[in-house]
């Protein structure tokens, strides 16, 4: 006998939280004003102070709001951008083999990615590159495959930097093994592990390409929030594997490109953005 599940009404604070989040995400991305004070929100939602506080505390806990004692409650720009873009991205994103469409956990592959990829492989810097850095984003899997097929050396961080970097040599991997070697599941079987003690042995990187949660036209790379790319760049820069002269390319869907002058704190600075429709040279960020 099939029993329909009982419905659980969401608690009041949770409904306020969701409504508040919806309002914040609908504001212009450049809006930097504090959210309305508690009494205003109590009136707006017709709820108690305790309920408003609980809703704000939850949003602060998961990073969307920042409570500054005595000043007000502000929106975290990076987190707002991430959430706005993830909503847009849902329409074109392809699921991950483990995380499905939980876009907080990974950077997805997307419809139209092959066209964005072609803009990268047409770059003279890519054609001439002997060693490339490609992020472990799903949107870069096919670019990793192309790097291997072109016989390039490929430096890839493991997911979440849990097992440092892997260095693959496309020339040394059999043709029918390359599709596997380009995946997160397969790359560690074909590559050499590179950690902080061996990173100095890697050749200087000629192209540094990454996916992103979002990227601004003034070159700010906004990642999934864990700042892995910033860590990777730092580790490589220390040993001279990357420097400011290395072209940094973000491969993203058009819906991930932010044209507004937002005050986001970038993981790294991007020179070029490749989308399915355009190649965008980034203007240097204004501090």
């Amino acid at each position, binding site marked *: 006998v099939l029993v329909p599940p009982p419905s659980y009404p969401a608690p009041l604070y949770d409904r306020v939280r969701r409504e508040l989040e919806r309002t914040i995400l609908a504001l212009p991305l450049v809006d930097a004003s504090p959210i309305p004070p508690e009494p205003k929100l109590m009136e707006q939602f017709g709820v108690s102070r305790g309920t408003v506080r609980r809703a704000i505390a939850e949003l602060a806990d998961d990073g969307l709001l920042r409570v500054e004692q005595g000043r007000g409650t502000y929106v975290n720009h990076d987190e707002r951008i991430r959430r706005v873009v993830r909503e847009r991205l849902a329409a074109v994103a392809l699921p991950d083999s*483990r995380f499905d469409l939980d876009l907080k956990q990974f950077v997805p592959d997307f419809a139209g990615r092959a066209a964005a990829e072609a803009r990268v492989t047409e770059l003279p810097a890519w054609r001439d590159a002997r060693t490339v850095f490609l992020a472990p984003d799903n949107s870069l899997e096919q670019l990793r495959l192309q790097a291997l097929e072109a016989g390039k050396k490929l430096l890839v961080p493991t997911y979440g930097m849990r097992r440092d970097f892997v260095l693959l040599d496309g020339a040394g991997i059999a043709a029918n093994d390359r599709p596997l070697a380009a995946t997160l599941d397969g790359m560690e079987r074909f590559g050499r592990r590179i950690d902080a003690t061996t990173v100095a042995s890697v050749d200087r990187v000629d192209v540094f390409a990454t996916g992103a949660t979002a990227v601004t036209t003034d070159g700010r790379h906004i990642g999934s929030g864990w700042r892995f790319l910033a860590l990777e760049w730092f580790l490589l820069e220390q040993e001279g594997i990357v420097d400011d002269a290395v072209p940094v390319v973000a491969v993203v869907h058009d819906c991930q490109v932010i044209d507004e002058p937002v005050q986001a704190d970038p993981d790294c600075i991007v020179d070029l953005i490749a989308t399915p429709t355009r190649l965008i040279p980034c203007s240097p960020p204004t501090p």
Partner: protein
Amino acid sequence: VSAADDLTELYRERIWRELQQVARPDSRFHWDFSRFIADFEGSDLCAQRVLALAALRDLGDSRIFVTPDNCLEPLRAELIRRGQPFVMSTYGIVRGFLALDPADVPAGEARYAATLDGFDRYARPVLLAELARGRPFGLLVTGGSAVSRNGVRFGKGHGYFDFEFAVLSELGLVTDTAVVVDVVHDCQYVDDDLAAEAHDVPVDLVVTPTRTLRVEGPPRAPGRVHWELLPGTEFDDLEIVAELRSLDRPSTPTI
């Protein structure tokens, strides 16, 4: 929390410590055994043992079901090389079931197609309605965190395989003669009898890199979805649960 739960937890913790010595990390979940069933040294030998089972030889036109556990990757690769189609659940059953026809896998890419990343490329999603029109499953293979002498297995602690078995049973796709195989490392075998819960699916065979063990026990009760246990669990939101509810089918007989 019952005493049986405590004991299961105790074994799970102890075995995960031993498993760390022989296991391989997951591409996403690293060493977090609560989130995936690990591959281990000798899983290729397990695949050879499964392929040698009478249950596979005598499969006839029955089908094979495999879970998306990392330790079953060598088995999946070998099935693909042999041209044997099979059905696999997606991770966490979130995207339901996928069917793979080895004819769709390019030569030389069996190993790639056997990974979760590669499987997505070559398999296609199957709705329950389509599954239900096909032949029943004669062989179901899963991994686990541990399995006991009396065939009680425990997984990551979510109960995915038990639930998959229940859903396939509700569709009439698991016959009385179906064989359930648990592929584990020797360190995951518990030489003790553990108490089973109502929704636990006892296994018929335990396959390790060194042994194939037949589990002695009473015949398995027909599987069913325990609807009363679903509310508030991750299963309640699954698309296949919505589909199962909507399917027009004879209600399961009550015993």
